[in-house]
C-alpha cells in the first residue's frame, strides 16, 4: 500500500522549523522541491532541508535574473526513518537566496522496501552512472533538472537514458535567452530487469545548453 507521507507542503517565508510524526521504520526516499528568488542577479539559489539536524537535501537553480521567483531543481535523498517525532528545518543556503510568502516547499517521504537509487549532480550533460536494479518489471523514475539556451525560442528537453535507450523525456519551452530554468519535474514508470544498468540524463537536440551551473536529480523507486 502506498504510504507516502508529506513532511511539509506549504508556503514560505523560509527559514522555517517544524516537527512531524511518522510510523515509518526503514528506508525512505525524500523528495524536496521548493521555489525562491535572488536578491541579486547571477547567483545560485539554494534552499535546504535538514531532518533531525542529521541528514539534508537541497534544491538549487542558477538565477540569471534578480528579484525573479524560480522553481528550483528538486533534491532527492535516500535515508532511513524511525517511528516517532522528528524535526525539519527549511532554510536558504546563500545570503542572496530569498524565500518569501510567495514561495513554497514540498517535502515528501516515500517508504520503500530497499534503499532507492538516488543521484544529485551538476552539469554539463550528458552524464551517466550505474544503477543496480533490484526488480524485474515496473519501476518509478523521478527526474528534475535545469538548462538554458543561447537562441530562443527553444525547447529544452531532458532525456532519461537507460542502457543507451531514451526512456523518459521532460521538456519546457524557453523564450528567454541565457536564462537557466528548471524544466518540469517528471515522475513516470519505466521497465527494468534485475542487475546493473547504465542510467543517466542526456539532452534533446538543438541549441540547448547545460553547464556547471545546472542541477539534476534522478531517483529510481522500486
Amino acid at each position, binding site marked *: 500500500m502506498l504510504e507516502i507521507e508529506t513532511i511539509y507542503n506549504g508556503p514560505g517565508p523560509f527559514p522555517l522549523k517544524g516537527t512531524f510524526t511518522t510510523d515509518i521504520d526503514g528506508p525512505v526516499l525524500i523528495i524536496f522541491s521548493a521555489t525562491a528568488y535572488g536578491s541579486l542577479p547571477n547567483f545560485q539559489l539554494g534552499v535546504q532541508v535538514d531532518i533531525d539536524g542529521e541528514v539534508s537535501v537541497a534544491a538549487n537553480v542558477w538565477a540569471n535574473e534578480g528579484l525573479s521567483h524560480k522553481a528550483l531543481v528538486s533534491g532527492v535523498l535516500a535515508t532511513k526513518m524511525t517511528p516517532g517525532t522528528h524535526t525539519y528545518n527549511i532554510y536558504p543556503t546563500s545570503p542572496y537566496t530569498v524565500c518569501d510568502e510567495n514561495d513554497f516547499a514540498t517535502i515528501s517521504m516515500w517508504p520503500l522496501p530497499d534503499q532507492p537509487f538516488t543521484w544529485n549532480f551538476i552539469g554539463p550533460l550528458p552524464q551517466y552512472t550505474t544503477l543496480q536494479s533490484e526488480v524485474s518489471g515496473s519501476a518509478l523514475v523521478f527526474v528534475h533538472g535545469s538548462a538554458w539556451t543561447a537562441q530562443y525560442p527553444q525547447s529544452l528537453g531532458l532525456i532519461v537514458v537507460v542502457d543507451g535507450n531514451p526512456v523518459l523525456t521532460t521538456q519546457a519551452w524557453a523564450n528567454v535567452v541565457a536564462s537557466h530554468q528548471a524544466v*518540469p*519535474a517528471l515522475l513516470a*514508470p519505466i521497465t527494468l530487469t534485475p542487475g546493473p544498468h547504465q542510467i543517466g540524463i542526456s539532452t534533446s537536440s538543438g541549441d540547448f545548453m547545460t553547464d556547471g551551473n545546472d542541477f539534476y536529480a534522478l531517483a529510481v*523507486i*522500486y
Partner: protein
Amino acid sequence: MLSEVIFSGTGPITGGQQIPFTSPVDGVPVLFYLSASGFTKAAPTMMSIQMLVDDVAISAAQVFVNESGAYRSLVCFVQTTTLTYGQHTLSLEPNSSFLSDSNCTFNITMVY
C-alpha cells in the same frame, strides 16, 4: 509501488479539461503527480493548476512568476488521496493567471 501515466500531452490546458481514468485500487492512498509548464500575461502573479478527482480538489502545482510572457515550470505538491475502484475523472483547473499553448507539456502520473 505501481504507477500509470494517465495523461501526457501539450497545451493549451483550459479550465474544465476532463481526464477519465480507472482506479485499480480501492480504499488505499493514491498519488497524482502533475508535471506542467505555462506562462502568464499578468505578472507578477502566482500561476497554479489545481487537480480535482470527481470534482474534489486533491493537489496542485504552482509557481510565482515575475515576468509576463516567459514560460515557467510549475512545482507539484506531493499529496495522496484515497480512491474507490473503477471509473473516475481527473480535471485540471488553471487559475486566471495561468496560460498555456502548444509549447507547454503536461504529464500526470498516478502512483498506487
